[in-house]
């Protein structure tokens, strides 16, 4: 969140401060401040290498080595009572140091505690699948593969889950444009009609708020409907649209506004 600045004398002084305000980090506490987390960390440290560990917002964050993940989660599930993997995914730090940060959010219902296991991998490196430990990791790892392109070794069905199988690109990467790259822009046209149809169908119109009341080809103004291609001027007469043609419709009673009742009460 951006820092709050008082707005009462905002015109008197320069409004420009720091456009890209970086919020201060949530303070980290020592693991020793919580007895349950301290015991858990000691159990992990006894078998695996722990790079860094701290408590943030009442949750312990543990940085481990990438190759240890299966063992750490197995230890936590079987011995430390962290029986649920509530979420896992990746964070894109490619711009900073060409790495992904992978996190596994663990929950213990018995201890009422949450631990976040994290590690870094380089771009192009695969992670170890934990699908054999937690069934929910099946789809999470597929989503991670879909969105970031990180493969999980040992996964039974390593395919895209949200995007189509023949999609190119990983949409959750920071470098992926929100409106899509060229492949995404022409995906449906290329797939259904073929590349040669691009010219006939034309590029996507992304400005959906654009309304041109003088363009009778694409827009119809309510109450002023005119045939397609009519030149529109400012002093046009309002046109009354009727549901039925002047001569009426065959076998159907002519709609008569004066003889119909308009019910205004919505609670009728």
């Amino acid at each position, binding site marked *: 969140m951006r820092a709050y600045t008082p707005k009462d004398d905002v015109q008197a002084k320069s409004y420009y401060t720091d456009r890209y305000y970086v919020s201060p980090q949530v303070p980290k506490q020592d693991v020793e401040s919580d007895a349950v987390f301290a015991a858990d960390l000691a159990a992990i440290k006894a078998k695996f290498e722990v790079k860094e560990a701290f408590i943030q917002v009442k949750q312990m964050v543990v940085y481990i080595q990438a190759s240890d993940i299966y063992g750490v989660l197995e230890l936590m599930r079987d011995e430390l009572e962290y029986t649920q993997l509530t979420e896992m995914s990746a964070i894109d730090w490619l711009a900073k140091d060409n790495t992904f940060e992978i996190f596994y959010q663990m929950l213990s219902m018995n201890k009422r505690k949450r631990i976040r296991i994290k590690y870094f991998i380089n771009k192009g490196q695969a992670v170890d699948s934990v699908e054999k430990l937690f069934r929910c990791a099946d789809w999470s790892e597929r989503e991670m593969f879909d969105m970031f392109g990180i493969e999980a070794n040992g996964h039974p069905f390593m395919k895209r889950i949200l*995007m*189509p199988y023949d999609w190119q690109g990983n*949409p959750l990467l920071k470098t*992926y*444009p*929100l*409106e*899509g*790259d060229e492949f*995404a*822009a022409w*995906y*449906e*046209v290329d*797939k*259904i*009609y073929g590349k040669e*149809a691009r010219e*006939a*169908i034309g590029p*996507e*119109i*992304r400005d*959906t708020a654009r309304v041109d009341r003088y363009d009778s080809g694409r827009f119809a103004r309510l109450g002023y409907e005119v045939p397609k291609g009519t030149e529109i001027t400012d002093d046009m007469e309002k046109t009354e649209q009727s*549901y*039925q*043609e002047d001569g009426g*419709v*065959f*076998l*159907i009673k002519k709609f008569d506004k004066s003889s119909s009742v308009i019910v205004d009460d919505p609670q009728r």
Partner: protein
Amino acid sequence: MAQHKVNYTQDGGLPVALTSIDKIVNWGRSNSLWALTYGLACCGIEMMASGASRFDFDRYGTIFRASPRQADVMIVAGTLTKKHAEFIKRLYDQMTEPRWVISMGSCANTGGMFNTYATVQGVDRIIPVDLYLPGCAPRPETLQYGVMLLQKKIRANHASKAQKAKRLM
């Protein structure tokens, strides 16, 4: 005893109505517009409401069908994702001629607020559309009005002539 008696004195004394082929065919087409159930997102809720008792699409002869082969009009109600685009084309191709398409709501018209990589920016990039309904989501009254306008459009056609097949390209 018959409750309803034929008035033999009107229309020249015969219980007969005269009309043209165009009018009788268009009357049949426009008053039995069977719609393909195609709720893709929240607009589908409004479409369902239009079909239910309060708004009652059955009055128009519009009955929702679960198969494109039995449907005349496709009401695209909701966001069309790029993953789904090929299926809407396939369903459209399965509908028999003559067929019509109503694009319901902002998402189907232009992609709406989903200005992203995964959303088709208007179903008219995939299939030809007869009627665009604005709104997010349009009220059932809007859809009813749209169906009435579509009926009017159908009645304006020459049913006896072979109609040019609608193609996007």
